């Protein structure tokens, strides 16, 4: 059995660990709130863009053959943009995205014989891929809270030019999607070529069917809107991933704090038992000693 001193030492160390995790929890709560407000600020923009695209389609621009919309007959080179965090201690956040991406990659590479390139954002993804010796096509820093739309826009243009040059035939985005404020899931979606999907907004728009005037022309607007659409998509997925990371870290740190609290409680009980046992022992010795003298 551990001595009193050993237990006291452990209590001390667990308490200080608890202090650290508690602080980290508070820090990520603050960061999470910041990310959440940024996420909300960026939402109206992407909704409006979706709306305008819907209106454009409505006015019969559906048949536009923009290179960004064109499916390649036999896609062989595929780029996957994987968004991970820079730091650990956030539960399964990074591993979920990495596993999801690698499964996706293996499926495409093994079953369909395609060449899959990985474009990694975030230190964690990069170091893990290095560790398992997976080739990384390109690595970019995850700017986290310093991220501005400009940075996302640069990345978006890069993806677009890779696609247009014919370097790659398809671009996928693998990141953590915010399903609701309390639930985030890793998800993979194709961003290039753009798949025309009829959203709910679009259907509601069709019902009203207002005839819009387009200046200079629907086609021109469409072709300058699509790159912006991609950039906004990249930007919002980077934001969502940042939010999810902070959320995951908060949960992980909360669990750690709770576990530490429980451990301190158990150790204190054990400490008191040992102390009591020692006292009982001493009394028994004294009583025994006195009895021997009589």
């Amino acid at each position, binding site marked *: 059995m551990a001595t009193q001193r050993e237990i006291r030492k452990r209590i001390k160390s667990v308490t200080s660990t608890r202090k650290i995790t508690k602080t980290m929890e508070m820090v990520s709560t603050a960061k999470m709130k910041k990310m959440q407000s940024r996420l909300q600020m*960026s939402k109206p923009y*992407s909704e*409006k*863009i979706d709306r305008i695209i819907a209106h454009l389609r409505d006015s019969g621009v559906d048949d536009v053959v923009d290179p960004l919309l064109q499916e390649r007959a036999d896609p062989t080179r595929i780029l996957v943009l994987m968004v991970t965090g820079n730091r650990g201690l956030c539960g399964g956040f990074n591993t979920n995205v990495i596993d999801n991406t690698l499964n996706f990659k293996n499926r495409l590479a093994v079953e369909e014989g395609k060449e899959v390139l990985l474009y990694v954002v975030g230190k964690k993804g990069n170091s893990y891929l290095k560790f398992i010796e997976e080739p990384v096509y390109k690595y970019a820093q995850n700017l986290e809270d310093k991220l501005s*739309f400009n940075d996302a826009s640069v990345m978006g243009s890069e993806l677009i030019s890779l696609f247009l040059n014919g370097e790659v035939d398809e671009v996928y985005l693998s990141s953590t999607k915010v399903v609701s404020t309390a639930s985030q899931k890793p998800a993979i979606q194709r961003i290039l070529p753009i798949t025309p999907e009829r959203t709910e907004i679009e259907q509601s728009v069709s019902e009203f069917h207002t005839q*819009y005037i387009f200046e*200079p022309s629907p086609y021109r607007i469409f072709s300058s809107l699509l790159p912006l659409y991609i950039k906004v998509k990249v930007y919002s997925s980077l934001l969502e991933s940042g939010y999810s990371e902070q959320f995951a870290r908060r949960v992980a740190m909360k669990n750690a704090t709770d576990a530490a609290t429980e451990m301190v409680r158990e150790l204190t009980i054990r400490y008191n038992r040992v102390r009591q046992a020692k006292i009982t022992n001493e009394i028994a010795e004294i009583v025994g000693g006195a009895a021997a003298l009589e």
Partner: protein
Amino acid sequence: MSMKLQCTILTPDRILYEGDIHFAVVQAYDGEAGFLYNHAPLVSELGIGEVRLRTGELTEFYTVEGGFVEIHDNKLVILAEDAYAKADLVKDEIEKELATVRAKEPKGYEERLAVSIELTKLKARLKVASR
């Protein structure tokens, strides 16, 4: 009946302006476009330049740097790629930036284009800042 437009200026990372106005002038791709109450539904591409929002006698100034404008049902939405309010712009800083961009010696078509776009943006900002 109040003849006011519901106006919103959005950039990808923030909501710059939200409010009711009487009259808006927006820099479109080929010149300025004005919007009054009961404007026909329209979507137009934006250029780089100034946005003026008039409410009564009061005029507010903003810059837009590309994007789109949509008006529908007296709701005016300006989707800018980047935009600034007059209050965010500091004249001296823009002049300094302008000087550094002017000092650049671009080589090749793409660089020249990038510099000229940057110049137009800075000039628009300067115009708004000195309003």
